[in-house]
């Protein structure tokens, strides 16, 4: 199975939508790789630089409620994938975005707001490590903290299978 985590970038806002993650005008691209430069291009968040170092080096995203709301575009997941981000930790996710993440064998982990507060309080250099077997997230910054999380069991199956297409091809 893949490794999940690494340096994290915090997007401290609710309701970050798919158009902010990848604007519709790039949906005419016919390869995932072509999406790479446009990650979070239209994100409306004070101080956020879509071309900055912290996004370029990020391997995980930490965010708030209802992340990925709006369009069904899986491009919003692929644009993370091609930028080597395969983990999003948030208070909650929009249904289609969450399903798209697991369908691609990537991880969307829900933690309570107080845990997200704690991660954010660790400063702007935070490393995240996920232990899928134990169901824990470890965040290292100013100090080290650890949280338990739960995944829907079928979502975990999909991650283990490497995504929904691989699972469905084997089982149906």
């Amino acid at each position, binding site marked *: 199975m893949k490794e999940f985590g690494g340096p994290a970038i915090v997007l401290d806002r609710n309701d970050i939508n798919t158009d902010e993650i990848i604007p*519709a005008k790039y949906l*005419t691209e016919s390869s995932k790789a072509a999406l790479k430069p446009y990650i979070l291009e239209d994100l409306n968040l004070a101080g956020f630089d879509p071309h900055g170092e912290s996004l370029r080096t990020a391997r995980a995203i930490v965010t708030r409620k209802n992340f990925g709301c709006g369009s069904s575009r899986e491009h919003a997941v692929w644009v993370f994938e091609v930028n080597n981000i395969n983990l999003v930790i948030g208070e909650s996710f929009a249904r289609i975005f969450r399903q798209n993440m697991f369908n*691609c064998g990537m991880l969307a982990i829900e933690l309570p707001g107080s845990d997200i507060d704690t991660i954010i309080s660790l400063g702007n250099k935070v490393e995240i490590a996920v232990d899928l077997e134990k169901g824990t997230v470890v965040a290292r910054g100013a100090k080290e903290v650890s949280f338990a999380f739960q995944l829907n069991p079928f979502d975990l199956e999909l991650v283990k299978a490497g995504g929904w297409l691989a699972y469905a091809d084997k089982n*149906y």
Partner: protein
Amino acid sequence: MGKTIAQKIFDAHVRDTPTPENVVLDIDVVMCHEITTPIAITDLEARGMDRVFDPTKIKAVVDHVTPSKDSKTALQAKVLRDWARRHGIKDFFDVGANGVCHALFPEKGFIRPGYTVIMGDSHTCTHGAFGAFAAGIGTTDLEVGILKGVCTFRRPETMRVNIVGQLPVGVYAKDVILKIIKDLTVNGATDKVMDFVGPVVDGMSMESRMTLCNMAIEAGGTCGICMPDRVTAEYLWPFISDDYVNLEAAVEDFKKWHSDPDATYSSEITFDVSGLVPQVTYGFKPDEVKDVTEMEGTLIDQVYIGSCTNGRIEDLREAAKILKNRKLAAHVRGILAPATPKVYDLALAEGIIKIFMDCGFCVTNPTCGACLGMSNGVLAEGEVCASTTNRNFNGRMGKGGMVHLMSPLSAAAAAVAGKITDPRLFLD
């Protein structure tokens, strides 16, 4: 214990239950358009899996950017077109026959009560208006749908939205759903099916019900559903008349899909529309909604009437009531995109196209166009659009543009006033 309509549809379509919470459903209709499907097609090809589970259950349309505007969109249309031909997908709609998917496919009679419907498009929830379970999905789900005819869902909870009272003059389904989204917020129905019930829904046309269900996703909902009834049966009659001895029999049969009176809901809200006034969005989220009276005077540069939310004949008729014998405000551009060729044709026959043109509108072919900022009316930085579409996200109709969502009647009033204004002032 009773069941909701979604539970009944799930029970009738279970292929597998990998966990008690998760089900894999057989899918009745897999719908495809040229933005999200080509990448699924090329991926399946690359994996040596270029197959379809059943060409009669796949429906495809080029609708988002059509006729193609550049080489990239031409390629997307071509990939879909070639694929439809290769696999004998007869229900493929191309230039000349195409229209916005969520308006076109219902018109063709493809959606029936009790169906499971998926599409790589978030507004697939529209089709719940027919008493179907219809959900937007991503490209991987679409690939599996195309290949295997199945899709996975968590067992959804249902929220009961009971709409009561009397819709005032000048207030429409669009105003109702904007107000509901305002109350629920963009996250209020996440992972939930929304049953839209009550006398107001019973009294709505199929068009209005589609407007209502179309925006369920803007509250996070998986699907909005209306109970299939006589209105549904009448709309579908040309397509189902061979299956039933008479309309009455169809109406009776449809009842098997109704949510039971003792079904369990995760929550219930009752919403009285009697005092509702026209609603308008003000920000970059569809729950940022105000009464039109609070938005009075907001200047606009463009009016857009169309889309899967409000580009149907009923919508055009309402807008035409205000536009008739009036002119666009001098600084305003008006764009009408009838949602389907049939809508266009009816609007021509009824003199509605002439009313729009005499008013100064540009009438485009049926397409999504400016709704998602890809063609036919993209905004410039700093421009403002009064729009009958469903999303006002930052940059949705063009980078730096502002979109105010509203009903066709409110959009028509804004067109002639040059600013957001109360459409009821224009009704005689």
